[in-house]
């Protein structure tokens, strides 16, 4: 077991955004979280990534309690999230966006050595550029990218920190149909070829059903059903909540 939450809760005032959810991710697994709007998917994500402190409950990474760890500490442990709304470094070049993330494990507070002289960092950044297919835009400011390209950059930045678990928050949001399929292929590739464990929050059901091994369905902050895509789509409760 790689990652596990134990009866995790997050309350915003009276609102129980996430309520006693047990989430388990095995090594190398691609697991999706789905649910209607406001079901608590992103909140659960943020709890795992360390962006929120849980109100109650715990998060374990390989049996290490990381519930009270901050976002940057969790990230260093290899659990890295992407954002539903693009969080990139807009005026920096595409390459620099990725390079800055790639240098995190190598150096961060060296203020004298030339950043370009870190060979490993540069190689890693170049490699990620290829993976997310942005080489042609290498030296363009990230703000000039199209929406689809920004979504790729978003994933590229997360990949560059060399995570063990990648938390993808609606990676295909706003993408065209063709782009969505391409993106789904890429995610599957990251999972199978690089062996990354991936947690995916996604609205596009076709993506979720085609690439995930397991699905957790949330509703009103609680776990509704957990199972394989098949089990989930056959479940009557899910059909009621989802399809109305």
């Amino acid at each position, binding site marked *: 077991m790689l990652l596990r939450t134990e009866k995790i809760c997050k309350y915003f005032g009276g609102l129980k955004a996430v309520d006693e959810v047990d989430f388990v991710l095995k090594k190398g697994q691609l697991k999706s979280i789905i649910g209607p709007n406001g079901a608590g998917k992103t909140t659960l994500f943020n709890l795992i990534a360390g962006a929120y402190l849980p109100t109650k409950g715990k998060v374990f990474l390989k049996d290490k309690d990381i519930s009270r760890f901050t976002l*940057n500490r969790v*990230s260093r442990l290899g659990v890295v999230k992407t954002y539903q709304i693009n969080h990139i470094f807009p005026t920096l070049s595409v390459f620099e966006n990725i390079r800055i993330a790639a240098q995190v494990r190598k150096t961060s*507070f*060296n*203020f004298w050595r030339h950043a370009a002289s870190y060979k490993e960092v540069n190689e890693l950044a170049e490699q990620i550029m290829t993976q997310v297919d942005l080489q042609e835009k290498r*030296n363009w*400011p990230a703000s000039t990218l199209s929406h689809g390209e920004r979504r790729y950059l978003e994933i590229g930045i997360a990949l560059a920190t060399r995570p063990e678990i990648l938390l993808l928050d609606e990676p295909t949001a706003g993408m065209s149909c063709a782009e969505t399929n391409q993106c789904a292929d890429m995610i599957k590739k990251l999972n199978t070829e690089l062996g990354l464990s991936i947690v995916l929050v996604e609205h596009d059901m076709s993506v979720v059903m085609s690439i995930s091994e397991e699905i957790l369905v949330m509703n009103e902050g609680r776990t509704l059903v957990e199972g394989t895509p098949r089990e989930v789509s056959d479940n009557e409760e899910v059909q009621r909540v989802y399809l109305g």
Partner: protein
Amino acid sequence: MVNDNTNTTKLQELHAPPKPVVVYGTIFVLLFLPLVLSTPLATEILIWAIFGMGFNLLLGYTGVLSFGHAAYFGLGAYSSGLAFRYLDASLPVGIAAGVLAPMLLACFIGALAIRKRGVYFAMISLAFAQMLYFLALSPLKHITRGEDGLTHIPAMAIFSFSLGKPLPLYYFVLVVTGVMLFVTWRILQSPFGKLLQAFRENEERAKACGYNTTMVKFWSLVISAFYAGLAGSLNTVYLGYVPLTTLFWLTSGTMVMMTILGGKGTFLGPLVGVGVFLFLQNTISLITPRWELFVGAIFVAIILLFPGGIMGTLEEKMMAYRMKRASK
């Protein structure tokens, strides 16, 4: 595809840190500044440019506004002045005192307030600066001489080379400025310098990448205080006395204005901003005692023409031109 590659190479210049030729070229041009401007004015420009480089590192590159940088500048000026006057300190010792004290102050203010964001941090720094100002004004009057400023500071010498005359002093300050330009250039292209800019662009994401962003801000502040202290200390050597106004909030305000005028977040912005500001101030105050009125009007005009500051807008225009050429 071949075409793409050439375009990419052209564009590569966009985000590259300033070329060595810019750094050395600037120092070379500054060698001749006393031929164009009066030597004291040229010296003052360099001193404030050092202050500006540090301030720009914090405001322009890290995106943190401190509205109390006079605290570091003034504390540097007073620390050196006190060391020179009461302890007969040599030039290097006095400057070291003028640099260390503001850095310690920055550590203190940083530890207390660095988690505050935006305008809150600006106001807390302002409050600290004003506290120092009033401390120097009356409770510590017996050593700081209060409103009169700290006088009777002996002329300095380095390697038995007197800095009492304007021209040797200018070249001494120029050496320090050159070193600081070089240091700034190194910092900007280091992993830390890149991290500052990433922080400015998106703090949340920098954190999600695994960076301790609080420390980024903290060190940026301390380094900035180093520059401010050094400038304050040189100002003491230059004036031969420490005016109380070095600690006044107007000094902080002037610095903000100079940096924005020159273009925050650009390598040469502070130097240009300081140069334009002090030149206008000096020239127009010779003609009329109401110089602020005219200088103010000119600033408004400059900012309308160059919304990103002089260097900032020039860089933007250059970038737009290159991007246009690259996408053809």
